[in-house]
């Protein structure tokens, strides 16, 4: 019962109240005697059963007293044993025994479990604590920074003896909040908002420094930024600035898209021009070679019989021309200058199939340049009323 009470001699903060214990002890004693059915109104009348009971009782008390020294250190814990209030030893996990009260006492400390404390919110980011999160930046803007700190107890002795910690979450939260505010206070708003890991790193270093200075025995595991936001009042403006950034990137990529469209096309056009030119060159040369070869052959024959060949060539050519074209034979000497030729009619007739505009042609067959003058003819027509 009271002796086996887990509070007893174990987790007491500060020294146990001796008077209180004595009172309890005496109560217990009285009740035990009473329970045996041999109430001792005076010790003078005690007999054998009382004697046996007494021995038994003393033995029992001693056994219980010694037994109260057993305790268990859980897997993630260390036991800190104090002898008369002075640190005696650190015990590892497992069942242990210390000398019972009032000689020794033990306190177990969790040294492996990661503990976590949130600043700016509790449990969930929605559950905001604005007075913790609102911070001033170096350029005198206001931001809301919510973050979480993970830590564990590395040195149970320091953890127990150096600081009055009480609630270790609150203890770390205070340190972390102060450190974060100091870091944010030296950083400008854009860095805090958009490079928060950098801020977290700096804050982490500062937090550890402070924890070390207080000899808290706590080691910081990490600092996680949960949320960094501009205050609600200016959120819209910040959002718009972010959109503007996207607009800028979009416009840049639009420009690049245009460039990526235009330049390859231009390169294509350039390649086409060059190929065409190359084609022109080759074809012109080939034609020249062909023409030259042909001419050489003909000229060879021509040289053998110039007169006949010449006439034959001339007549062949004329025949070919006249057989394909529309002809008008006009003997000017018999007519006058105002000869009327319905050229347009002729044109229409011949242009029945082709859409292309017909073009009147003048030729000076062979070597008689003064015979027919189409131009004069046309001029004459135009000159008519």
């Amino acid at each position, binding site marked *: 019962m009271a002796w086996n009470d887990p509070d007893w001699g174990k987790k007491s903060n500060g020294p146990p109240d001796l008077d209180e214990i004595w009172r309890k002890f005496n109560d217990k004693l009285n009740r035990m005697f009473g329970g045996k059915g041999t109430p001792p109104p005076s010790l003078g009348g005690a007999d054998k059963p009382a004697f046996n009971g007494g021995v038994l009782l003393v033995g029992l008390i001693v056994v219980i007293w010694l037994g109260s020294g057993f305790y268990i250190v859980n897997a993630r814990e260390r036991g800190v044993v104090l002898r008369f209030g002075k640190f005696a030893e650190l015990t590892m996990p497992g069942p242990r025994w210390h000398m019972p009260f009032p000689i020794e006492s033990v306190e177990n400390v969790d040294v492996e479990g990661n503990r976590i404390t949130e600043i700016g919110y509790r449990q969930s980011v929605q559950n905001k604590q604005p007075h913790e999160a609102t911070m001033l930046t170096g350029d005198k803007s206001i931001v809301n920074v919510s973050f979480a700190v993970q830590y564990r107890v590395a040195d149970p002795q320091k953890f127990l003896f150096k600081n009055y910690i009480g609630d270790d979450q609150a203890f770390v939260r205070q340190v972390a909040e102060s450190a974060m505010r*100091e870091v944010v206070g030296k950083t400008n708003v854009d860095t805090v908002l958009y490079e928060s890991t950098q801020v977290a790193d700096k804050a982490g270093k500062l937090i550890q420094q402070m924890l070390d200075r207080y000899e808290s025995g706590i080691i910081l595991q990490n600092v996680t930024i949960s949320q960094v936001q501009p205050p609600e009042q200016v959120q819209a403006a910040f959002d718009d600035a972010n959109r503007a950034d996207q607009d800028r990137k979009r416009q840049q990529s639009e420009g690049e898209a245009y460039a990526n469209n*235009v330049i390859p096309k231009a390169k294509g056009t350039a390649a086409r021009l060059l190929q065409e*030119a190359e084609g022109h060159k080759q074809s012109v040369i080939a034609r020249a070679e062909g023409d030259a070869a042909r001419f050489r052959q003909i000229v060879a024959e021509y040289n053998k019989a110039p007169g006949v060949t010449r006439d034959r060539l001339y007549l062949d050519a004329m025949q070919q021309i006249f057989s394909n074209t529309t002809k008008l034979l006009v003997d000017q000497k018999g007519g006058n200058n105002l000869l009327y030729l319905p050229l347009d009619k002729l044109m229409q007739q011949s242009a029945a199939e082709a859409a292309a505009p017909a073009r009147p042609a003048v030729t000076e067959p062979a070597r008689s340049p003064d015979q027919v003058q189409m131009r004069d003819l046309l001029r004459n027509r135009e000159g008519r009323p």
Partner: protein
Amino acid sequence: MSRNLATGLVVALVALVVMSFTFFTVDQREDAIVLQLGEIVSVKTRPGLKAKIPLIQNVVFVDRRVRTLDTPDSDLIITSEKINMLVDSFVKWRVADAKQYYVSVRADEKAAEARLLQLVRDGLRAEFNKRTVDDVVSGQREQVMESLRKNIDREARAIGVEIVDVRLKRVDYSEKVADSVFEQMRQERVRVANERRATGAADKEKIQADADKQQEIIIAEAYRDAQRTKGEGDAKAAAIYAQAYSTNPEFYAFYRSLDAYKESFKTRQDVLVLDPNSEFFKYFKNPGRGGK
């Protein structure tokens, strides 16, 4: 026998009671002040089992660990530019001199903290009044805290307390000032947004203009090279023609002319108005007599 046992028990009990009034343990975390009829006899600063005279001496335990004093609310403090700031801080303190601590505040933590709170407030006011917002927020934050610590520590020694650290937590604008800060932030963002959009448009224009320029250059250069190539071809062709035709220029003129006539008049749309007196019609009207 039973009488002896009973007597033994009683003796043991009495001994226990006397011992419990005589011995006391001093915890690792504590100092013990031994008082004799209200007067301090000694201060036990080392942990362990200690003895005192029962009944006339009693013991007061003083926690020696570092404690935290957190100011309950933010204080409104004015900086050197007369701007109201909400300031929140905490103080790490511990009992350095248990005797002094007992004498001055009766080892009463509440009383000690009330005194410290007063010191902190005065200290904060003094430090902030001579500094600008910039200084207290970023520039001289550490100096403010260190100077506060020193000053408060000096005063606190009087009550046996050592100041381990003073930390500023919140240093914020008061609500009234905050509104103008928001406005300023908003305008700053508007400026940033405009600048970004303008740069975006400018960049786009620049990139497109550059692309157009490149396009022009590429095509013009290609044109140049193409013309050069064509010229080479034309020149080569001209050379070939010249070489071939120079063997008989007169015949070439005749031959080429015939080709040209054939090429020029080859459809029904070409109308020829002819004079029968031309060379071609030499025999048309006059069959001749053989030979010219």
